[in-house]
């Protein structure tokens, strides 16, 4: 973006759209397990995700554009998760929160756990931890914002 001296902002439509999208990510209320409580804490007053424009947790997948998969995905839940993802309108993003979602976590030896949600839906940002602290999730969302804007992290 370039700012002219006369107070005129010139930009491309793509850049403006990316800027808008990245600052109004509406997550889907989709709590699966332990990490969901930390996701609630992110929404709460102490960490306050609304500073990054993501305070409105939507209950319907059709109104949201970010899915935070928080908690263990079991084989029984995976088809439902896929369906919810399909119901979300484009552009849509997925954050995998917690080691259970990334590769199975403490339940990796179990028979009923999907070893990584990236086998079901494409994932944009992985946030490790068991559960990740709210700070980590906030960082994950900021990383996703950078990704949407086409900036690199390093």
């Amino acid at each position: 973006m370039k700012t002219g001296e006369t107070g005129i902002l010139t930009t491309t439509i793509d850049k403006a759209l990316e800027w808008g999208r990245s600052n109004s990510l509406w997550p889907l209320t989709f709590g699966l397990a332990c990490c969901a409580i930390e996701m609630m804490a992110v929404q709460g007053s102490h960490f306050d995700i609304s500073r990054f424009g993501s305070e409105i947790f939507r209950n319907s997948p059709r109104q949201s554009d970010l899915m935070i998969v928080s908690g263990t995905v079991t084989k029984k839940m995976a088809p439902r998760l896929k369906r919810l993802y399909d119901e979300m309108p484009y552009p849509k993003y997925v954050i995998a929160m917690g080691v259970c979602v990334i590769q199975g976590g403490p339940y990796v030896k179990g028979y009923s756990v999907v070893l990584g949600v990236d086998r079901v839906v494409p994932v944009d940002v992985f946030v490790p931890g068991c559960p990740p602290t709210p700070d980590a999730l906030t960082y994950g969302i900021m990383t996703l914002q950078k990704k949407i804007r086409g900036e690199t992290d390093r």
Partner: protein
Amino acid sequence: MSNLVELNMGPQHPSMHGVLRLRLKLDGEIVREIEPIIGYLHRNAEKLCEMDYFCDNIVYFDRMDYVGAMNMEVGFLEAAEKLLGVEPPERAQWIRVVAAELNRIAAHLVWMGAFGLDLGMLTPFFYCFIEREKILNIFVELSGTRQQYNYMSIGGVYQDITPKIIEEIKEFIKQFPKKLEEIANLFLKNDIFLSRNRGLGVIEKETAISYGVTGPILRASGVPYDVRKEEPYLVYDKLNFDIPVSQKGDNLARFMIRLEEIRQSVKIVDQAITKIPDGPYFNPKAKKSLMIRLRGEGEVYARTESSKGEFGVYIVGDGGVKPYRVHVRSPTFKNLSIIPAVAKDKMIADLIAILGTFDLVFGEIDR
């Protein structure tokens, strides 16, 4: 001829407290039949316990009732220490009581905030989470993590409680009752809240007992049953506290019982924090480096009072370093079974309100 409409609710639903799915049969807006379908969070924790050493099993118990993990640890260790014959020292027992009761407060605060959300009240949620955050800060200093603590271990606790942490807890206890009244007023001075909950979802004493319901729900129906009093574990017999009981058995009674329980927990922490004796916080018999060599034979069952109700752990040992079988009597699973009976012939909106008072945590129901 039936002209009931079948409706599916969940597993993704804002007021299903995780992944509960209900299959409803509706007559207009009135629910005629309810069938809870569970298993969406079945993580085979009981089976995994058999594959790990006794001391490692705490990991899976932490993740059962994830809002009150300290209470789960107490429950498991009551059984495991009985089986392995390792007695925790006096100091560790007092520290455990302090940690468990602080966690009970945190768990009830989460429930209170979520219950507000179920009924469309957003404000109490923020107030509850401010207070919960203060408790979690204490736990971070105590154990290192915010939610799944893995703090207690066989033969004591992982880390000693320091004078600094004791001061912090005292400070928290001093300011908390005032804040709690503030939160309670948000609910109890709200006419809509009262009229939506008074007289709704009444559970009779006999029904509650026959379904095996425990915890605050049973006490709200007029049965003064609490494992901390009936069969005191740790040092609960040396503490002075009451068991709140209500005869009404409706939604509001269950709310009031939990509110009163928070106050009693504050009272317990207040007493226990000054009484922590000096001495070792760890039994040398279960030295950390030798803990995986502990062997247990026989079978034990221990029950404790978690924030949801009676939490029972059954362990069978075959003389090896790993348990042969672990079974959990989870309170919320039993509590959930009464929902079809209670919420029958009510409106859908009332079903949500009734479900909200049950404090469902799916890590524990599905395990």
